[in-house]
């Protein structure tokens, strides 16, 4: 930072602001971000170790099981620095998976600095790089921290030189810690105070508060998490959402504590806190929007949070058609906590009424599915994920297709395009061959390969998005014994030879099973899916032909043989009740199945079709 800039900052800063630090922790997945957050909370006595759950910030059940942080959460810590002064440290947690780059950027925009965690045994990985660039783009002060120093294979020098060489930020004196054992945690807190700038902003200026997260609480309504840049907000204020114009009366403001909200007088420029305002209409609080006051509004909103676009679409249907409204309610609630989720109603001949949902990626999709099932107790059917295709039609129009059912017929298409991504894969050198084969198989275009050091390389590929949304990540992991890491960003639309693959059961097309595939891969894919369907369609009293077709032409065929015999148990005095219950149970089992024309299919059949791992 140059002197003028520093001078300007000090000048515009109040005494109060000088004692605030707003920061995030960013890392590649499993590099110890959440564990470090736990230690910081302990070291600042924000929570006692008795209160400490394994990972306080990851308070969703699902996150614990998957061991990843899905949702950003913020927490306030109080810290007495070696200079004898007290500081307020607002930690904003961020997710670490490639699907959630947007959430990372959202959190980063609320901060002045970020701790970049690097695993001393792994070094810099794909998401370390991606997240570091996001932070640098957001103009944050990036403070590297080397973690896992307790492990025998920790290599501090290598980690430091990778940070300097690969990312290009100084790391010579960066903290080297073990979040697990608590080693050198104080040095991290010192670095936060000394290296991350205090926030600035005029608390007398019109209110500008940036929404970086929000969630629904059944008692309070929507709880909006904000970073105030200018001005001040307190209970009783009339606030306005700048993008929608919606107006609300603030009922409460305060700070974010590890175990909940703590009501306060106000949230002022430079601070992080929450606002509640009896907000019931969920669509009124958009993450990324700026909140201002109705009286004395800010002249313009905060400049852009990166707009998030779903990359993967799939249909979600209730297993029981009567639960359609419940599903809608659940999606609305999930969307509130997850700005990246989009949905709109759609109907399928096979599945009835449901929603076409947009996700950031396949992991995101799986998480939403699981949350619908666990938190909302819904049984759902998910159709094959699809990307958005761009079609130039012969009539001169251009359409974007997110649902294979709407794909134009061959003679309507002038030219078809599919989204490509720029993928960066970092891997130990010994797995390069296998990974190159994989990328080749997924229609990847090799761009270049760089050695990060003697043992690791970074591969760059251009890959069609539709080749990586199914199971690419799993395949990558299995070919590299879990060591390779992936990051990707959208490159744009490229012309492609695409066909729509339809599946017919007992002669009837099943719209929910259709998908778009590259011409060259259509035959192999059709055969594999027909086989999968055969495995997953229970035998019925009649034979069920399965056909895969492009246009009207059948390219693969399987048959589910008719059931010829079920158990003909004897049925005497003691068997009757049991027998009756057994028949009832058999029928219950069938109720879970979806009737597709004349064929009954288990909900699992739809998911099984998606798992196409080559190995």
């Amino acid at each position, binding site marked *: 930072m140059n002197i003028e800039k520093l001078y300007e900052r000090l000048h515009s800063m109040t005494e109060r602001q000088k004692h605030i630090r707003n920061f995030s922790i960013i890392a590649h997945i499993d590099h110890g971000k959440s564990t470090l957050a736990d230690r910081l909370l302990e070291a600042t006595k924000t929570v006692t170790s008795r209160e400490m759950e394994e990972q306080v910030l990851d308070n969703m059940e699902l996150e614990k099981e998957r061991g990843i942080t899905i949702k950003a959460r913020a927490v306030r810590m109080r810290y007495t620095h070696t200079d004898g002064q007290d500081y307020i440290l607002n930690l904003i947690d961020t997710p670490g998976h490639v699907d959630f780059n947007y959430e990372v950027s959202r959190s980063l925009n609320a901060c002045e600095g970020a701790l970049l965690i690097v695993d001393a045994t792994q070094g810099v990985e794909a998401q370390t790089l991606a997240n570091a660039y996001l932070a640098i783009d957001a103009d944050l002060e990036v403070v590297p921290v080397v973690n896992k120093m307790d492990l025998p294979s920790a290599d501090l020098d290598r980690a430091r030189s990778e940070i300097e060489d690969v990312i290009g930020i100084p790391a010579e004196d960066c903290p080297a810690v073990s979040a697990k054992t608590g080693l050198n945690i104080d040095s991290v807190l010192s670095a936060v105070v000394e290296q991350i700038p205090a926030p600035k902003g005029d608390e007398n200026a019109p209110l500008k508060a940036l929404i970086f997260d929000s969630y629904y609480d059944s008692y309070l309504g929507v709880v909006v998490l904000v970073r105030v840049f200018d001005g001040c907000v307190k209970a009783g204020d009339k606030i306005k959402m700048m993008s929608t114009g919606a107006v609300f009366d603030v009922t409460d403001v305060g700070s974010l504590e590890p175990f909940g909200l703590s009501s306060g007088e106000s949230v002022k420029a430079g601070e992080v806190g929450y606002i509640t305002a009896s907000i019931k209409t969920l669509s009124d609080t958009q993450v990324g929007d700026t909140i201002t006051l109705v009286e004395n509004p800010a002249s313009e909103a905060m400049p852009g949070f990166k707009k998030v676009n779903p990359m993967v679409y799939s249909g979600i249907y209730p297993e029981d058609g009567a639960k359609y409204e419940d599903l809608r309610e659940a999606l609305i609630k999930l969307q509130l906590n997850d700005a990246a989720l989009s949905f709109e109603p759609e109907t399928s001949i096979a599945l009835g009424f449901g929603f076409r949902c947009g996700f950031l990626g396949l992991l995101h999709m799986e998480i939403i599915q699981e949350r619908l099932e666990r938190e909302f107790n819904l049984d759902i059917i998910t159709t094959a994920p699809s990307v958005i295709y761009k079609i130039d039609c012969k009539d001169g129009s251009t359409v974007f297709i997110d649902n294979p059912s709407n794909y134009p017929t061959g003679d309507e298409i002038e030219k078809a395009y599919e989204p490509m991504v720029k993928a960066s894969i970092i891997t130990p050198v010994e797995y390069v061959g296998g990974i190159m084969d994989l990328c080749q198989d997924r229609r990847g275009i090799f761009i270049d390969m760089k050695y990060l050091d003697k043992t690791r390389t970074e591969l760059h590929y251009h890959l069609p998005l539709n080749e990586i949304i199914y199971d690419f990540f799993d395949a990558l992991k299995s070919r590299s014994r879990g060591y390779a890491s992936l990051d990707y960003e959208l490159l744009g639309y490229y012309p492609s030879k695409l066909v729509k693959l339809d599946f017919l059961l007992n002669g009837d097309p099943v719209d929910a099973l259709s998908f778009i595939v590259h011409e060259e891969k259509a035959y192999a894919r059709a055969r594999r899916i027909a086989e999968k369907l055969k495995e997953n369609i229970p035998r019925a009293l009649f034979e069920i032909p399965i056909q895969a077709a492009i246009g009207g032409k059948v390219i693969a065929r399987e048959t589910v043989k008719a059931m010829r*015999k079920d158990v003909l148990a004897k049925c*005497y005095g003691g068997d009757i009740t049991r027998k009756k219950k057994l*028949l*009832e149970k058999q029928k219950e089992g069938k109720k879970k199945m979806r009737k597709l024309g004349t064929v009954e299919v288990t909900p699992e059949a739809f998911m099984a079709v998606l798992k196409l791992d080559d190995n």
Partner: protein
Amino acid sequence: MKNIGIYIHIPFCVSKCAYCDFYSLPQERHGDEIREQYVSALIRQFEWAKKKYGELSVSSVFIGGGTPTTLKAEQLVRLITSLKNTFELTCDCEFTVEANPKTFDENKLRTLKLFGVNRLSIGIQSSNENELNLLGRIHSFDDAKKAFELTRKCGFDNVSVDVMYGVPSQTEQSFLSTLKAVTELSPEHISVYGLQLEEGTPLCKNRDKYVFPDENECVSMYSKGISLLSKAGYSRYEISNFAREGKKCRHNLGYWSAREYLGFGTGAYSYFNSQRFYCEENTESFLSAKDFDSLITVEETLSETDKEKEFVMLSLRLTDGFSVKELFERTRNAEFYLDRCKKYIESGFMEIRDGRVFFTEKGFDVSNTVLSEILF
């Protein structure tokens, strides 16, 4: 007076067969004293039932097990006499006793005959020694044949034999030779059961060690078996049962026509006054029981809907199914059931003829699937 059927369970066997999950004790766990006490307890249970349910007329008795013929002749006499003294057996009462080929002699059979037993059911299962062995049977086919001839010698003119299919290592050919060998004995009644792997049985635990005939083989062998039996003069009257003219098992027909029955002994089921209940499967508490109420568990109290469903489910086990007229008389939802049957009649799994709805042979093979669709 109510007319019912009576089942009496004798939970003793020489040894337990590899496929059996009925409640029974192998020989080493029951001495003569226990069998004696068991008969006494049954007699006390008769008395208890009479007090509880009043005078009853009985037109079928079935003593099953286990192996009833593990009881000594005197014990069987004591049991039967007491039964007759407690309940009123009709003069044409069908009185069946199950018998294992190696557990009776001429004396025992003559005694049974003398005291009114008029039907025997003998478990032969197979004429193939290897199959008998795998099933854990204690007799050879030769033993079975001799035992059968003995029943004739002692004057039994209504004898049923049990045969199994779907047995490990069984082939169509071995199954058909079993049926042929059995029809040569010329019993009045033949039950042909598909082997079921019951959880916890030795056969089930070791199932991976055996080769079972597959679904297609079972369908084919059973179908050929049906025509073999038909040519030999046995017509199928229920999913697993075949009989000569006039020799259907009255007691079992009772189960399939919602007739009331009382069961005595450990694990025995009853259906009486719309309740299905059973006696605890614990020999020790049964032997010492004074008040049998405490041993009874009600499994189900049947609603009108339950009764309707059971009527359809059970009558469709019979080859002549139910009559449409009776369906309207006995159920409030006759049209619903008929409507559900329609699809299966159209696709050849069921048939409607002379006012009766019934399964075809092809339909019987998948009757669970069809019934679950029709009933629920």
